[in-house]
């Protein structure tokens, strides 16, 4: 049961968080602690917010917060010049912890404004719940529900029913690292047990290998190689992606299924032990490929094999940059 009852109270929480973000941003910009503040502002379409870069305190009024703030803003941090303030959800901050561990972001150049997260909505799920080709003309999100209006319809949906799949199984809705936490921990949803998150992976692993392969082949066949998954991922920051390497050339021009598979396997390997399941890749994919299943399995493997959870400890060492003598080796001849 949630500690806070009543929907009016719920709306106030969103308002309070939004106010807190605006105040923090204005204060930090005024004091000169930061040069830029990265947050969300209203988007141009219903159910969309969009990243915004605020540089003067008066503009802090543009900042918004609601369960439709879907982007992982930490993807803008590597290579960023100057000091930055940034709004982070529970998942986002774990990507930031990794970026700090991997020396991509300097801890003293970033002011972290943490938000106790209730989960964000998945636009595909909203579309499915609504029925295809019903055009949403306007949407308003409160803490608990989503009010949608379109041509001849008005629908209210529970946020719970259209949560992003990664939010449903989120373990750390409260940021594990922050300079400012707006609101308080009780405003976040309850963290889920890891097993809940691995249920889908475990069920999938029960299928026959051939069935697993055909599932992935079918998904990945649809890939149009726009690399939105890579670009939206806060942890994909290589100056030159292996996909773009010309010598040796990993991915052929003739982008058949096999090359698409190689890209996706490569992507998963590169985020193995680092991915925090923020779901940014899945949301960015324009053709709706189920990108989470593979990364979630790697997350599970890291937990099972090495008892490692990514993005929790700023004093730690990345999974693949260290070892233990007693690491599993039963697969080695």
């Amino acid at each position, binding site marked *: 049961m949630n500690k806070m009852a009543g929907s009016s109270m719920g709306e106030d929480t969103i308002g309070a968080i939004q106010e807190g973000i605006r105040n923090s941003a204005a204060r930090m910009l005024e004091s000169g602690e930061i040069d830029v503040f990265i947050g969300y502002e209203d*988007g*141009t*379409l*219903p159910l*969309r*917010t*969009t*990243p*915004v*870069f605020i540089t003067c305190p008066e503009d802090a009024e543009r900042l918004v917060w609601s369960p439709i703030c879907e*982007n992982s803003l930490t*993807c*803008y941090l590597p290579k960023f010049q100057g000091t930055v303030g940034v709004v982070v959800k529970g998942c986002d901050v774990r990507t930031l912890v990794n970026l700090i561990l991997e020396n991509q972001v300097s801890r003293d150049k970033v002011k972290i404004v943490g938000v106790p997260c209730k989960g964000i909505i998945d636009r*595909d799920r909203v579309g499915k719940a609504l029925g*295809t*080709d019903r*055009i*949403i*003309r306007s949407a308003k999100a409160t803490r608990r529900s989503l009010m949608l209006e379109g*041509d001849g319809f008005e629908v209210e949906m529970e946020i719970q029913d259209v949560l992003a799949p990664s939010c449903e199984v989120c373990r750390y809705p409260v940021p594990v690292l922050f300079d400012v936490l707006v609101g308080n921990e009780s405003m976040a949803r309850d963290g889920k047990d890891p097993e809940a998150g691995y249920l889908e992976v475990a069920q999938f692993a029960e299928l026959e290998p051939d069935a697993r392969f055909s599932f992935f082949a*079918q*998904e990945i066949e*649809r890939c*149009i*190689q*726009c*690399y*939105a998954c*890579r*670009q*939206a991922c806060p942890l994909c920051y290589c100056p*030159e992606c292996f996909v*773009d390497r*010309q010598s040796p050339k990993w991915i*052929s*021009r*003739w*982008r058949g299924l096999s090359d698409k598979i190689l890209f996706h396997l490569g992507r998963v390997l590169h985020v193995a032990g680092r991915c925090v399941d923020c779901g*940014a890749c899945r*949301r*960015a994919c*324009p*053709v*709706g*490929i189920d990108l989470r299943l593979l990364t979630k399995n790697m997350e599970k493997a890291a937990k099972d094999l090495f008892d490692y959870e990514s993005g929790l400890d700023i004093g730690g060492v990345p999974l693949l940059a260290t070892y233990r003598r007693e690491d599993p080796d039963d697969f080695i001849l």
Partner: protein
Amino acid sequence: MLKMAKTDLDAFVDALVKASYVVLGPIQEGEATKFGVVGGEEIKIPRLTTRPLKELFFPQDESLLSFDRSGTPDASVDTSGVLASDGISPRVALGVRPCDARALVLLDNVFASDDYRDPYYTLRREKTVIITFACPLPGVACFCESTGGGPYDETGSDILFVEVAGSYLVKAVSEKGKGLLQEVFPPCILHEADDEDIQAAAEARARGELPANAGVPIEAAAAILGHVDAFGDSAWEEVYKKCLGCAVCTYLCPTCHCFDIGDEVTGASGERIRNWDSCMFPLFTLHASGHNPRPSRKERFRQRVMHKFNYFVENNDCMACVGCGRCVENCPVNLDIRQVLTTFARRELA
């Protein structure tokens, strides 16, 4: 003007198939829609396919020729394939929206102009009849009217279907369209439309014109972008910032047409392949020396906007945008080209 019951659409497709046409229409692929071979199953016409119509003429990758140096001292080159006389059968693309059809006319400037005719593209164009379905309900990201098109625009179409109360009014727009209707005229399906239907269509059209967003100041923006100082304008510093650098906008765009050509060789044989390129990628215009005139996302984003609303205009007297809204709708960070254009329309350059 002809008329057909909406429920006869599948029968219409069957008639085309029977007349040996390959019928291409919207198909569902996972959560996305694109154009693919239809027939046999019920056709659903979505508001707009996720993937653009251009793929049917300018595919994401295609083999231009193959070569083999084993055995003979000289390379033997094989350019048949697509270009062989039976490489492409006559096709009908159906369920096309007016924006996608109009985009083909823009692409013709590139691939089928007086200066250069791309044999692969033109062959596919010649062999394809475009049946456009007028848009009864434009979406929130649509802005076709701002670009000079509209939900009932006929540019690029051979036949136009307009939905009126359970029926389609069928209009042959081009000679090619007229020819197809005469050749595959199933009288049990197609009837002559009466004045009442035509009146109803006109009314629907008047109603439908409204929501397709005519308010984006594209002409004004294009005028500013044509200014000599536009390229170095400080506004670029701001507008690109949230761009992630993925190719969703360019790959889903019905008019983006940049491509790259290269050889894929295994041993002594290989293929020359043309595939889509995107100005959003770091490899775009990367020189062999390692220098890239467009080194960051700022320059690459500018390239996309300038190409569509300035360079293309200078070359072809029209903008390379049809306002389909795919880039707006699918951008992972909601970077809205309409906003960018509005920003520039309001700019005052000395």
